[in-house]
């Protein structure tokens, strides 16, 4: 009797775990089935090469490139902000800062990570954009620069905490050997510690990129809703995620072509983040230096 009960419990627990697999299957199935329907009406070649994205207009074009360009532009700006600042903070906290300082700073930085993204969007639109407009006259009220910078600020804690973990995992002996050779803290940090922790730092950057690519509210609020194939950070653009939000807030009938476009866009987004996440797993596995 006891054994049967134990068996039932185990199966129940396993079923709960299997839900996560069903989630993945569900995501792939939903994206695939709708995207296939989408491509029965729009040619894949147009989707990948057309330079205009105007599914909601009378003259319809279905080229994903402008949305991809917008996504990469904001992501690039975000990483440009987050990588130097985030890595510097990680190195500073790990190599320079006194322990007591670290203890106060880390939870404060964690607060940055806990703020809902819609709040960051408000910050970008009502503080950062007006500030940048003072510096760069003629900048549009919606632009990739402001959204990208704020997204970078949002990603700083992610890069800092993952890089710091990687730096912390480097054996103390390496640092001490470096000091023993007469190196300064700076030399030790960038010639010994950072190279030794490089796989963890690369992982943090890739996850940061993945996070920026999938980020929605900041860009939906501050970057505009105008798909445009450009690398100019001062004009309104549209990212893949923003397009999905734009269609979702409007009135689009189930089963229409416009409805399917958000799944095709979602598919593109899913593919990008899936590739990035798998590169990060691969880097983690392959290049993790083993110290015994």
């Amino acid at each position: 009797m006891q054994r049967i009960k134990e068996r039932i419990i185990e199966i129940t627990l396993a079923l709960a775990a299997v839900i996560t697999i069903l989630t993945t299957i569900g995501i792939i199935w939903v994206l695939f089935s709708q995207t296939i329907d989408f491509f029965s009406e729009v040619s894949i070649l147009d989707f990948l090469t057309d330079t205009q994205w105007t599914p909601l207009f009378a003259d319809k074009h279905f080229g994903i490139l402008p949305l991809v360009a917008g996504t990469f532009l904001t992501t690039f700006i975000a990483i440009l902000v987050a990588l130097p600042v985030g890595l510097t903070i990680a190195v500073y906290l790990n190599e320079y800062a006194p322990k007591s300082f670290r203890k106060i700073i880390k939870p404060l930085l964690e607060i940055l990570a806990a703020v809902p993204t819609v709040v960051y969007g408000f910050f970008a639109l009502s503080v950062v954009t007006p500030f940048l407009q003072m510096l760069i006259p003629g900048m549009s009220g919606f632009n990739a620069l402001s959204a990208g910078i704020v997204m970078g600020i949002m990603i700083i804690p992610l890069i800092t905490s993952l890089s710091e973990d990687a730096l912390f995992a480097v054996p103390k002996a390496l640092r001490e050997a470096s000091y023993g050779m007469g190196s300064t803290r700076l030399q030790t940090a960038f010639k010994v510690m950072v190279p030794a922790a490089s796989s963890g730092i690369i992982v943090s950057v890739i996850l940061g990129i993945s996070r920026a690519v999938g980020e929605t509210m900041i860009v939906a609020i501050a970057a505009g809703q105008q798909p445009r194939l450009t690398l100019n950070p001062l004009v309104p653009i549209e990212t893949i995620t923003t397009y999905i939000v734009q269609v979702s807030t409007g009135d689009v009938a189930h089963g229409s072509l416009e409805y399917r476009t958000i799944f095709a866009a979602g598919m593109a987004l899913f593919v990008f983040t899936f590739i990035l996440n798998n590169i990060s797993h691969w880097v983690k596995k392959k290049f993790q230096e083993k110290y015994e």
Partner: protein
Amino acid sequence: MNSAKKNRLKDNAFKYFGIGCTMFGLAMLAVFIGNILMEGFTRIDWDFITNFPSRIPAKAGILPALIGTLWIMVLTAIISIPLGIAAAIYLEEYGKKSKLANVLEINISNLAGVPSIIYGLLGLEIFGRIMGMGGSLLAGASTLSLLILPIIIVSTREALKAVPKSIKEASFALGASKWQTISYQLLPASFGGIITGIILALSRAVGETAPLIVIGALAYVPFVPTSPTDEFSVLPIQIFNWISRPQKGFAINAASAIIILLLVTFILNGIAMYLRNRWQKKVKW
């Protein structure tokens, strides 16, 4: 200047650069919160909390969105907590070396990297259309539950892992079955860690906007949802809606609603941090 001096100079320069970068992060946080408090604080009063949305900014309130957020939080907790804990127990205690466990493991770490808006597309089709829930609270909570499930599973596993083996072995030695060991020893011993992870996951769910917009949560709700099948709005969507309007009055409303939202997330995070510290101090193996 000899090279040792130069190196020391560079070393010190980087130190101040490091302090500068850290301060930049904190200054942003300060500007950020200061700005929102300045813009939004004057607008917060009892009316703001108990009024319905309106076309006139000065009369608009957040009642339906606030109640919607509470509903979503409770429903998401009810759905995701048992599932998350059960899945974590299975992975940590039962299926350790099985093929299924291996697949599950890779799968969960992949799911954690899927953008939240994709979960919205999943919820829109599966819960909204195929299961016929539409844009109801239940559809929203189910979607968010799937979104935070990986977070709960990972943190629960960490908590279970932290319980020393000797406790488990002692329980087995006394003749307890596997489930008895788990329910009487492991779960109580790891309770602090588990609850911390759950609260952090829920605070994430409270701040989510994009997936709920995609499943069709409303921007304008002139009623208070009273059952899980009702349509709804939540605070982040109300904020997004107000930000998108051109009138200055709505921007102030958005700032006020942000104060309330931040209050909710910070309180949740504060509780989590408190529990974490307390637990770390109390439990010493």
